[in-house]
């Protein structure tokens, strides 16, 4: 077990114009003190998909993107609330989502000092990847601070995993890693974020045929999550070739990104090929994409999901919010 030093929680990318810094976790009720020019959120079926936006002061630009499927549970309530709060309730899902994010961020970056919040709580993984992709490839003139925010779900015991057919793909084209000859691929090592879906990590790792794995174990706000995560992955963690384990605090994504960054540096220095497989809380997907973006194009981010439609679980927020601040400054300011 290891834990990253808090002092290491400021990391920067190779261009030295991309920096992250911690965003102090707080209660949902305390979000009223923050002011954002732009807020990007989701209209989902979970009550938590509007929890952050409801507590933030009204932004100048608010966009909430819906989903084509799973319009159940709290979906209509959320859509209604966003509409009444003067958010643009958008149907730019799927292929239309990445251009929307790019446009929003580019417009927000037109004037220095604007702050943007992106609530990833109800975003699916490709959306999170699209957000990080856009952040990482903003123009050299961009001057922007973006808080990626996450409202953890209330604890509920994991159900038995129905059998399914796993779909294993890269999360997006930006995160495929460096294209190289498969025969030259050196020692692939998976940095896998564990969730509490039994056997999912084991099944995915088995299929990827990696040489070694490092398991990132989330320590959530609610202590009940950890034993469930360990139980769900006990076969993997106790196997004949168990992965190394690293614990990361869900409350401090910047620290987690620093941890991943350190692992990636170490693996690359040894000639290995790191790849990221984010299961578990959504914020880990954001962390993984941010870490991979810093090492672009050398690190792939994979996605494991079931082909069969998964049950829509109406997660409620547990009252906490965590996040990480992404800062992009114009090139000349970094050069000074």
């Amino acid at each position, binding site marked *: 077990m290891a834990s990253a030093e808090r002092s290491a929680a400021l990391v920067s990318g190779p261009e030295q114009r991309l920096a992250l810094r911690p965003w102090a976790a707080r209660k949902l009720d305390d979000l009223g003190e923050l002011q954002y020019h732009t807020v990007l959120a989701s209209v989902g079926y979970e009550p938590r998909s509007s929890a952050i936006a409801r507590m933030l002061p009204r932004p100048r630009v608010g966009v909430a993107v819906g989903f084509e499927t799973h319009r159940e549970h709290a979906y209509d309530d959320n859509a209604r609330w966003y509409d009444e709060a003067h958010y643009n309730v958008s149907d730019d899902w799927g292929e239309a989502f*990445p251009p929307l994010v790019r446009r929003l961020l580019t417009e927000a970056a037109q004037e220095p000092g604007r702050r943007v919040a992106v609530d990833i709580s109800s975003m699916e993984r490709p959306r999170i990847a699209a957000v990080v992709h856009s952040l990482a490839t903003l123009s050299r003139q961009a001057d922007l601070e973006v808080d990626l925010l996450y409202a953890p779900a209330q604890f509920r015991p994991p159900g038995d995993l129905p059998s399914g057919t796993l779909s294993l793909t890269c999360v997006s084209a930006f995160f495929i890693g460096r294209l190289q000859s498969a025969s030259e691929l050196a020692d692939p090592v998976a940095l896998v974020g564990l969730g509490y879906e039994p056997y999912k990590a084991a099944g995915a790792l088995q299929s990827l*045929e990696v040489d070694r794995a490092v398991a990132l174990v989330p320590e959530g706000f609610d202590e009940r999550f950890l034993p469930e995560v360990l139980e769900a992955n006990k076969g993997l963690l106790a*196997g004949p070739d168990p992965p190394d384990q690293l614990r990361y605090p869900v409350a401090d994504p910047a620290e987690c990104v620093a941890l991943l960054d350190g692992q990636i540096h170490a693996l690359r220095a040894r000639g290995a090929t790191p790849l990221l497989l984010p299961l578990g809380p959504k914020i880990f997907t954001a962390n993984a994409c941010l870490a991979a973006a810093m090492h672009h194009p050398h690190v792939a981010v994979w996605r494991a999901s079931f082909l069969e439609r998964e049950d829509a679980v109406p997660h409620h927020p547990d009252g906490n919010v965590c996040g990480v601040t992404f800062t992009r400054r114009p090139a000349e300011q970094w050069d000074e």
Partner: protein
Amino acid sequence: MLATDPDKGPYSRFNARRATPAQVATGFVPPDEYWELASSTDPQLLIGPRGIGKTTLLKMLMTEALEVWDHEQAPRAHREVRFTGAFVAADKMWAGQLDQLEIEIPAEHRSRFGVAAFSYMALGALARAGLARIGKSGDEREHDRVELSVAQQEELAAMVADSWHAPASIATMSGLEDQMGINLAALGTLMQHVATPGLTPTEIKTAVQDPLLEIDFFTAASLFIDLFNKAVGQRDHPWVILIDEFEFLPDGSQRQLGGAFQGRNPRLSFKMSIAPYTGRRSFAGTPLNDWLPVHLSRPRREQADHFSDALIQRQIADRARTFGDRSEASPTPQAIFREGGFEAREEDSYAPGSENDKDAAALAAIDTDFKRWFEEKIGAGGMRGPDTPGYNELRKAMPLIRLRLAYLREGGGPGSPHRIPELYAGIHNIRAMGEGNPRWLKALTHALLERWEGGQKIVPRDQQARAIQSTAEELYNTLKAVPIEHRVSDTDSVQTPAPGPGDDRISPFQLITRLGIFLREQTHGEAFRTNQPGAFKIDVEDPWVQDVVHSLVFLGALVYEDAEGSDPDAEAVRLAHMWAPIFRLLPRKGRERSLRVALERSAPALKRRHSASGQVPFPEGGG
């Protein structure tokens, strides 16, 4: 082909695809199929399931491997391999990268990107193969070495530079190889650019005019080969591109290799490894240039057992060291685990009062179907010795008798939960359930040796049973979340299907469960039969089910069997013996049945046991 050292050879703990040729060559023992590949420059398809050693065989055709192979058969290989082999690998990870890029690239441009990616990969391999032959030192193990001066290399590199998209300043063979890696990476960047959200059609049109996409592999490779051959005075020397896991190549390259490239240059040929199920009709070749199939079968039982024992022995030694035991000779697997519970007993006696006689009598007392069978075969007078009618049939039935007895004694029918009986303990069962699969063997042995106290002590049979149960359940449950490789059509490359409506399609876990339940009903059902089914002829037409079956073979959960009957294209599979304790089966082969019928018949049985949640239930003992 099996090596006895579990760290060496094709069944070793390392992945042959990423091993150096020297690593692959260490401990390599050639099977017959190797000589089929080595002695011919014809286009060949090496067909065999995962883990069978296809990659190793292809790599052992490379100069670098031949030169370090230390084996009595090595001189023969030097004589028979009369070509230069260039090894090109594709795999799940590489295909996943390309798949994702292609999804986000406009459809009309995808094929060109995929073909270019393969081309740079294969040209790099060609340069490497050429490089491996340069320089003679007089070592007797050298294979087809040639002299190519620096000036000649410079000249060759300059002449191919244009068609290889390399700078004219590239002056060496290694420079050419490196440049192909750079081109491949640049192609990836170009693909990512074209996949950028919001790019205008004009921007895309400009991007796809990049010269990197103007690559003609066949012309570029032929030019290199002809120039190289000419420079070293071997005008007719053949070169063979050795393509591993062909099914993972992009569609466009598959089509070219499947037909268009064949026979155009007698000095350039291809050998490709594929999984048995991969759209064979696509690879028929052209009328005068057929692909010749080379089927790589599973190793014989004795070979697999030999390998399994060596691997288990290694783990015993490792475990012994944790007890501070540094002695040279750790106990054998046989000494620690003893005989398998289904093996013939030492006394092998069926005389009145013998263990076998007691078991048969005990079963007859509680199993009316067996009693009927016994009386029919042996007669009411019971077993008196080898001359008694039905002696051989009873002998053959003893494993099944013990199995039914063990479960009926537990007090439950097929539906009752229980721990698996000690019958599944013993080295014979451990070997059978390990299936010669290093990963499974390691998992089994790891769990078993946790219950070993070191020295000459045995692992008690009840403890063995528990270790086997936990390992089998863990591996079985892992099937709940595995991908399958699905072809939309015969001409498609293998890919993971995109998420979509598929709720009614059978999952890998469901398929194993349904076959297991079918066999369990046959084994423990009302009729006592000695000729139990154990294999399934793949007679389903549904491509999805076929692909689930073949993906399960890829994962080791199903095992190919030689199909009964005269149809050479028929395929049959059996459940891996690892699932025997899950479904209360004998870890043995059985007669063949129809897969279609088995799936149909097991559906109602499965439905009866559906849990309230509607999820597929664990069979008893499965979790």
